[in-house]
């Protein structure tokens, strides 16, 4: 499955981040059967707890989607981890910087 011959993608600019943010919103809503429209998830809205209300089972599910779709393996022991799920935009920026597909 791992596609290690493809060159690393160039990180996208701010327009690309906005598009990736929308794409991630759609993937998350689909993977978790959420009762919201992807467009209704604000880019700065927290994903955990009071925001979208996701819990650790959901986060594991999102990690799976992100690894399949973009080749990014999330890790809890990286410094960035608490920031990654702070909002959809943070997640998009992390994926953008680390994606391999």
């Amino acid at each position, binding site marked *: 499955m791992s596609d290690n011959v493809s060159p690393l993608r160039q990180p996208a600019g701010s327009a690309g981040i906005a598009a990736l943010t929308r794409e991630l919103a759609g993937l998350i809503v689909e*993977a978790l059967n959420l009762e919201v429209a992807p467009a209704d998830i604000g880019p700065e809205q927290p994903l955990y707890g009071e925001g979208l209300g996701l819990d650790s089972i959901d986060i*594991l599910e999102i990690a799976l989607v992100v690894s399949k779709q973009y080749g990014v*393996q999330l890790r809890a022991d990286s410094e960035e981890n608490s920031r990654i799920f702070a909002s959809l935009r943070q997640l998009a920026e992390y994926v953008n910087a680390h994606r391999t597909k």
Partner: protein
Amino acid sequence: MLAYRAGTPIRVSEFLADVSRVSGALGAGGHVLNVCSDRYHFTVGFAASLAAGKVSLLPATRTPEVIAQLRRFAPDAVCLTDEDACDIELPQVRYPPTPAGARADTSAAAIPRIDPARRAAWVFTSGSTGMPVPHEKTFGGLIECMRVEAERLDLIDGRSHAVIATVPPQHMYGFEASVLLPLASGNALCAEHPFYPADVCSALTAAPRPRILITTPVHLRALVAADLPLPATDLVVSATAPLSSELAREVEQRFGTRLLEIYGSTETGSIAVREPTRTAQWWLWPRVSLESRGEETWAEGGHIERRTRLYDVIELTGPDRFLLHGRVADLVNIAGKRSSLGYLDHQLNSIPGVLDGAFFHGAAAGAAAPEAAVARLGACVVAPQLDAATILAELRRRIDPVFLPRPLLLVESLPRNSTGKLPQEALRALAMAPSKPAPTA
């Protein structure tokens, strides 16, 4: 070796020195809520509480509501934490930092002798009336159960097995399999609590062999679905929900080892084991017996302190063999967290402004690997003065987040039948009705 952190061994003498240091820091109260997230810190905290004559408290969740109930249950309780920002409303004891440099005189500490009849812990289940129900665990009972478990998992062969776990040490399964099991059987626990598949793989790789993985169907599903090489492991143990036989086979192939499942409950602890790729039958602990009474099954004997009802539908197939046929209808088990529809309905209806409301078993989500997706709950609520966000915020104070309804539907009335009963089917049908907000893909 007693434990490992990032592959570095921690000796028994260091552990005993840590236990003596932490037991001195716990203060005068008789109860300790040990929320340390580092498994080694948790284990030191548990042993220090025992050595200092205190009882550990293991609630099923830590919502503000449950903490308030704990304060009433044990007014002298303190919270032992290894995190800087801990917002639990109890007097806090910070896990004392390990002294830097080489440890002198670590051989002086003696192993404390603990009376087997001593109460070691109160473990809580959520009752159906809104109050958590405490279950007493004696030190002797906990240890006896783990000696049997170590035999059944073939962990007593003269080698030290490193135990890596994806479950928290505060959950009954994690408390047993990742803390008490290594302590009671001369094996070694690993301090980490890896979460993402990549973390689990590096924690496994860092640990010496033989190494075993204590985990759940949720984590196993994520591990086999991730595009990662899985490190060779000497045993994989799963509990909290039955594993599908396909997933069990895939786990065995990918990890190159066998997979064993444990069956138990918060009240009884572990009581049976099975190898799902060989048989559907569970093998009961010696000295524990099951009795069927109509649709109910009760367990007693061995380490079980008192006769206890099991909330699963069980078919006895021999003196120490049985089959599981799902859970009792009212019971809810999501990723190892247990509750009942009765309890959740009670919490929902205690929210000011909620006139009527009921939870129901919903459909499984999980498009990435649907064969083992986690089923969630939904709820229908009659509350003309409230919006869904307010109700969710109130529920979040009262119940564990895994039980939060998805979807939460505001309705004009609940589909009660002529006898006032509320069939689960009718609730699900209401949830599927076209008036619900449709996600636009």
